[in-house]
């Protein structure tokens, strides 16, 4: 067969291929499709949902057990020697704490605090970080120089020490905790956004928008920002567990959420003297903290991998091997404009 004949045959084959096999898919769809096949990430989502639902439903459990979170039960919630009672005793599902409060209920209410602090501080940090990064990256020049050095300065702070000092000076309270954590979380996001903006502002679509007379603010927030959502989402997902742990750390040190409001950190602070006599007092809140932060971290890793298939994780390798025997997909994905060049799914399998 001559070369001309081969080209003709391929051209014919292409023309005769069914038209519905070619689909345009957005990066978000492809990310979701990869994510839902990542069992670790899906498991993490399930865990986070369960913890969130338990936190939301905490008052229902209070009405079920009749144990408000800050009520003590000196007669039934502690032994004669004043030690916490074990799980299952006197209707305390996970036992009690040192003053006879229901540990299960307090862990649930602690989850409310932890998730609230994690989500709110991350939202504040993301909003501030994206705004500062966009402004620094887009305007450049002295604006960039000033903001970039400020970002560097914030990142260079020994933040745990400074956070402790601020908590001492301003007094421990929920708004102070949220403010302190947010202040130390936005800079990392801002630095990534600045770098991406420096690159994106040189792209043709930005040039086009500028030539059409779009204002800098419109270009930043309507043209560039949508292209930054992917890395920001990954960073935000990973920032939530950091914020939860940060809050727990401050509360553990007595400078975060104050008694009688429960938080996992202040429960662990109380429990440290009882680890020999009442294992449940340490194990359950520590497990809640561990599982929640682990779930958010694994979900963040999963989202990052799903958005950037060049970074494959060890857990994902098993999935690839299992898919090897399946027939190659017949579709050819067309990458949406927002993402980078996408690999055909057949190549991935």
């Amino acid at each position, binding site marked *: 067969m001559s070369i001309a004949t081969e080209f003709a045959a391929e051209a014919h084959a292409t023309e005769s291929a069914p038209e519905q096999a070619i689909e345009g898919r957005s990066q978000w769809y492809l990310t979701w499709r990869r994510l839902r096949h990542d069992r670790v990430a899906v498991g993490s989502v399930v865990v986070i949902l369960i913890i969130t639902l338990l936190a939301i439903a905490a008052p229902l459990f209070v009405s079920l057990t009749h144990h408000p979170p*800050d*009520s*003590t039960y*000196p*007669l039934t919630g*502690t*032994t*004669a*020697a*004043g*030690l916490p009672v074990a799980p299952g005793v006197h209707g305390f599902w996970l036992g009690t704490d*040192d*003053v*006879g*409060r229901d540990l299960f209920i307090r862990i649930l209410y602690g989850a409310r605090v932890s998730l609230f602090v994690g989500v709110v501080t991350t939202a504040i940090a993301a909003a501030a970080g994206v705004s500062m990064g966009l402004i620094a990256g887009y305007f450049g020049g002295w604006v960039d120089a000033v903001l970039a050095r400020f970002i560097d300065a914030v990142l260079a702070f020994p933040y745990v020490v400074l956070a402790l000092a601020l908590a001492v000076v301003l007094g421990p309270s929920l708004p102070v905790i949220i403010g302190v954590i947010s202040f130390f979380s936005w800079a990392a996001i801002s630095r990534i956004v600045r770098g991406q903006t420096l690159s994106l502002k040189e792209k043709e679509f930005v040039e086009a928008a500028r030539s059409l007379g779009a204002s800098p603010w419109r270009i930043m927030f309507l043209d560039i920002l949508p292209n930054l959502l992917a890395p920001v989402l990954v960073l935000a997902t*990973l920032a939530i*567990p*950091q914020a939860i*742990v940060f809050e*727990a*750390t401050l509360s553990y040190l*007595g400078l975060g959420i*104050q*008694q*009688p409001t429960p938080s996992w950190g202040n429960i*662990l602070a*109380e429990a440290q*003297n*009882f*680890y*020999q*006599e009442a*294992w449940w007092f*340490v*194990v359950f809140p*520590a*497990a809640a*903290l*561990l599982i929640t*932060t*682990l779930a958010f*971290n694994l979900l963040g*890793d999963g989202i990052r991998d799903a958005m950037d298939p060049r970074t494959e994780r060890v857990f994902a390798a098993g999935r690839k091997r299992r898919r090897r025997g399946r027939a190659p997909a017949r579709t050819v994905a067309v990458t949406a404009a927002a993402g980078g060049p996408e690999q055909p799914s057949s190549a991935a399998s």
Partner: protein
Amino acid sequence: MTLLTKRIAAVAAALLAAALLAACGSSSNTPSASSGKPVYGGTLHIVAASGPDHLDTVPAYTTYDYELSRAYARQLVSYPTDPTTVLGSAAWVKSTTPTADVATVVPSTSNGGITDGGTLYTFHIKTGVDWDTTPPRQVTAEDFIRQFKAYCNPAPGGFVGNPLYSESTIVGMTAYCNAELAYFANPKHAATAADITNFQNTHTIPGLSAPNSLTLQIKLMHPASDFLNIMAMPFASARPVEYDNYVPNSLQLDEHTLSDGPYKISSYIPGKSITLVRNSAWKQSTDPLRHQYVSTIVVTEGVTSAATQLADMEAGTQDIPMDTNIDPAAIPGLLASKVPNFKVWAWDDTIPYVVFNLRSPDAGGAMSKLLVRQAVEYGVSKIAVQKVYGGPSVSKIINTTIPPGNVGYVNFNLYPTPQNNGNPAMCKSDLTKAGYPHGVTLTYMYQNDSVDTSAFTAIQASLKLCGINLIGKSEPASSYYTDLGNSPVNNKPGTYDMASGEWIPDWFGNNGRTIIPAFFQTNCTVNTVNYGCYSSAKMDNLINEAETAPTVAQAGSFWHQADLLALQQALIVPIQSQLFPIYTSARVHGGVWSPTIGDPDITNIWLNPSS
């Protein structure tokens, strides 16, 4: 996962593993060596968080001050050490009854030591009781008079333990102190060591005289059946003439202490360590109360964690505690282990109690309203607080200001609640009658250590049931009692409405003077123990009647009436009286507990093995 979250995850996992291992593990206490004949030698290691507050015996007023000063400061009369776990037992009575120390005998009417209708006490001083000077010098009557004069320390910020005992008994003591304070209040008269000494050497206290160097006579304003107890306080130690070179309670004095006891301070590094060695000037023949069993005593300061201190003593690297109570969480396990080097010793105190700041203007002056205070009396769950402290094996719930076993104690309870767990209904009823039908928010001050924080949490939870919302205000131990007794500012908004207090009687038995007057006598001054600044002519009269009563029984009757009045007025909420659990290293024997010191008696401890 970021580096931080990985670390935290690792810590959380380690906590989980440690707790699970602990749950499966068992105690590893070392059995104590058998008791027997005292062994001489060795170094006694004392572990402390911050160590003694004062080495000068005039301002020294804590149990850990007393623990150390027992070794280098002697009194005319003092207490033997006979550790007991039974309150009121023969050993308890022996340990709380003054016997002769520097004095040849305890003065009594039968031996002619107490005359003039009980108003003249004559003490004869033993020969051979020497200061560790070169050469050793006899302790004299003037040395005791010098100490009484030092009670009126006029130095700025000068702190004095409790001068009220002597000022309320000894003729001319109050006038002397007032004169000295007035003299140095003049800006022209600086309170230097030389000037203070000059004033003291040119003025006398009429009630104190020294017919000769070995005889001290003390004239009282009126008979005082507890005067020997006052003289057994470390405040009444001998004071060498060398101390005139220093301002009382100064660092310079602390660095140049002299000893007439079995040990002397050889090294003092503030905040770090204190070392005592045997005092060669001391003679066992002159001192029936103390011994020189161990060769050296080393106080290591800066170990703030009770758990670390316990671990150190279990490992044998430290021997006895000083200023840190054993962690209540460890008590059940130690009791169950039945190790002989852990015991719960008899004691008699009011720890803790709740005090009301009667002058607080907060919440419409709620604390000045009797019904609000009575609501709190009903609302507090005493059993919840007791369990925070370790339960009934280490404390007993009390309902009176005077704890059981002391003169004036009568068992009554004006605010009974079921199982001592509070009565929210009565609490709410009183609160409504007081004009707070929708509850009231008050500030509660407490020390920020783990036990006091948990006690506050228990009180807060119990009062919330009847609508009293407590906002916690925690303070470090170093400033807590200064702020609590800072009466000039405590009538301002936002200071505190209620607070936790602790009180240990300065002596036991005939000790009404050490309880009721401290709590309730009109004394709204800086450093007052009457934290609420209560003032009542009726109360003051009862105190005066009790202090001048000719017999202990009559005094007891007045003390009880004062106690009853205090609870009718709901001035404090007595919660419990603590016993004293101590863990020592396995090699510690002898005087591991003295109720009048409130800590171990280091002059009666011996070590086996000693090295």
